[in-house]
């Protein structure tokens, strides 16, 4: 059993009681909500005649269903309009702070909370979205929940949970040039498997993790869930503190010094005991792409799609399903695979640094004529900053469409969808069958820089070839 890790300290601090069934009752310090998984929870509160226990600890925004072409109200899609207006009503009625479209702070919930300074070390954070693990980048314990649990957090600010085990994933050395956080996390999921994390919190650590920026760390923690871990985190350091400082909701004045002192006390240390430790060499990671229908089915840009007998018996069944669905032959190269749609955005890779990296690749280049390419900033703040830096112009000049913030084609709940069996090069997090809106659509997950390279060539390319020139 783990001891003295950041996870243990934060868990113990938030434990309210041991429940009769044997689970722990855990206080949730910050609850984030959005339009898709909250309406039924508010409905249940009404049915049970309950109120929101601590309205100040819940923050709302709208992201999943928002259109990215025009966001004028009412939305063209009646159902989407119904969902946003239900959220507006619920927030108003329960006195919950809501960052609506046009507020300047709307965006993907996992982009918005960190950039407002709401996400801080040592917190427990829950949200009705599996990518809540993102917030672990700050040394918080953050996990996705379902709608009934959203109801429970609204009603009691607590959850009934079994404590997780802790696995440290130690990343030695540094990522090489042209290799990004996205490549590292895809590599980790490939090595450990998509279900290895069940029952675990992942602590990402080591020189390669320390070298990452806060936004890159968010990319890493964001995809913990794709490796089966409901929660992933990184111990806070000076980069964490500098990122938070002066943000809208950051502790101010005399509170700042107190916060710093407390945050520094939370870190795992040399006395920490883990349930499991895994070490890997980050310098060996290549630009990594998925070829299949789970985020674990990935390979380096210069590798070939695995043969069936190269895979463990447990992975063979899903591999056969993937060959057929994706139309790939075992042993085939992934490089030069033709792509139809290029998407940059999502809670994994829709932040300002992601847009900067992609814009650097696209500058003075043109997107292949056969490709539809679009970029969806993660938030209004990201969009405004990008415009200030002139990135929107670089994207538009290259042939990318510049859109309004939202989740967009990561899960295709709005009108941004693949058509038929189109292949997308996507900076998002899931390549499941049908994920991007077409039941036969095919997704290749990769870093934003790799999406930019694919857009220019119209086919899967090694972005390092662009960076040398």
């Amino acid at each position: 059993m783990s001891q003295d890790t950041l996870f243990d300290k934060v868990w113990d601090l938030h434990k309210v009681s041991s429940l009769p069934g044997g689970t722990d009752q855990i206080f949730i310090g910050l609850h984030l909500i959005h339009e898709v998984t909250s309406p039924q929870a508010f409905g249940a509160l009404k049915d049970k005649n309950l109120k929101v226990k601590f309205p100040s600890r819940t923050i709302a925004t709208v992201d999943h269903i928002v259109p990215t072409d025009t966001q004028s109200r009412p939305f063209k899609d009646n159902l989407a309009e119904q969902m946003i207006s239900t959220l507006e009503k619920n927030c108003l009625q329960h006195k919950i702070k809501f960052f609506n479209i046009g507020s300047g702070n709307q965006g993907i919930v996992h982009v918005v909370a960190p950039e407002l300074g709401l996400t801080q070390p040592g917190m427990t954070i829950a949200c009705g979205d599996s990518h809540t693990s993102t917030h672990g980048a700050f040394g918080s314990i953050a996990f996705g929940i379902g709608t009934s649990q959203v109801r429970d957090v609204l009603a009691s600010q607590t959850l009934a949970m079994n404590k997780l085990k802790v696995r440290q994933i130690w990343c030695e050395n540094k990522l090489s040039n042209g290799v990004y956080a996205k490549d590292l996390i895809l590599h980790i999921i490939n090595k450990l498997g998509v279900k290895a994390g069940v029952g675990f919190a992942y602590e990402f650590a080591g020189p390669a993790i320390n070298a990452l920026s806060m936004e890159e760390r968010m990319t890493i923690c964001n995809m913990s869930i794709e490796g089966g871990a409901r929660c992933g985190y990184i111990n806070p350091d000076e980069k964490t503190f500098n990122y938070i400082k002066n943000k809208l909701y950051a502790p101010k004045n005399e509170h700042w010094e107190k916060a710093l002192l407390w945050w520094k006390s939370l870190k795992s240390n040399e006395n920490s005991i883990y349930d499991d430790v895994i070490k890997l060499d980050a310098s060996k990671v290549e630009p990594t792409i998925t070829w299949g229908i789970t985020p674990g089915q990935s390979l380096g840009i210069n590798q070939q799609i695995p043969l069936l007998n190269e895979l463990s018996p447990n992975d063979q069944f899903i591999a056969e399903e993937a060959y057929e669905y994706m139309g790939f032959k075992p042993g085939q190269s992934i490089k030069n695979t033709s792509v139809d749609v290029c998407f940059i955005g999502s809670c994994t890779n829709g932040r300002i640094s992601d847009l900067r990296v992609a814009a650097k690749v696209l500058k003075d280049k043109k997107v292949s004529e056969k490709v539809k390419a679009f970029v969806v900033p993660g938030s209004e703040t990201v969009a405004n900053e990008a415009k200030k830096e002139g990135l929107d112009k670089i994207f538009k000049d290259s042939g990318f469409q510049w859109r309004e913030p939202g989740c967009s084609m990561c899960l295709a709940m709005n009108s941004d969808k693949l058509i038929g069996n189109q292949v997308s090069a996507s900076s998002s997090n899931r390549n499941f069958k049908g994920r991007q809106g077409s039941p036969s659509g095919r997704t290749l997950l990769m870093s934003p820089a790799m999406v930019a390279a694919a857009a220019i060539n119209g086919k899967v390319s090694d972005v390092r070839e662009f960076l040398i020139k």
Partner: protein
Amino acid sequence: MKSKFTPPMGQINQIIGKCISLIGNDIDTDRIIPARFLKCVNFDSLGKSVFEDDRETLKGKHPFDLDKNNNASILIVNSNFGCGSSREHAPQALMRWGIKAIIGESFAEIFYSNCLAIGIPCFTLPKKSIQNIQKYNENKSLFLEIDLKKSLAKSKDLNFDLDIKESSRKMFLSGEWDATSTLLENENLIENKFYSLPYLKFNS
């Protein structure tokens, strides 16, 4: 599909029903209920859309479309079932189709806790046992009587022990799976925690 849906309530001691096998590892919640069906403010209409795209692809051959599986209520699955999105719409859709319990090799974590929160027990068995059940179920109907007190499944031909997390088993037996009222019993402790957490002081 059942015509009338009544959600489970209170103590869950046993589940009796016909099995339906769904073969495949890593079946994600996008496949269980594609995202376009999440545009709703209640769960009522989800039952008919469960596995919509997979069913469309298989044109009537999907287990959820086969006549022999009509009125089945115990789903037999393989490994890492329910991975991906945290959408509770996935177990809600299964439940509204008629599923009352799931037996599998392993479950994704958020899916498992969503099932617990809405009253669907998820049991585990070793890979080989699951495959044997699925094989048996290929040709013959399998009716199971699951006793949660003993974690035991009985049928005409087969009897086997099921694994379930002890805390989950207790919560089903006591009714505590429907957690809100249990959590609110500790209202004083919750308020004490709210006033004692360091960061809620320096964020005020």
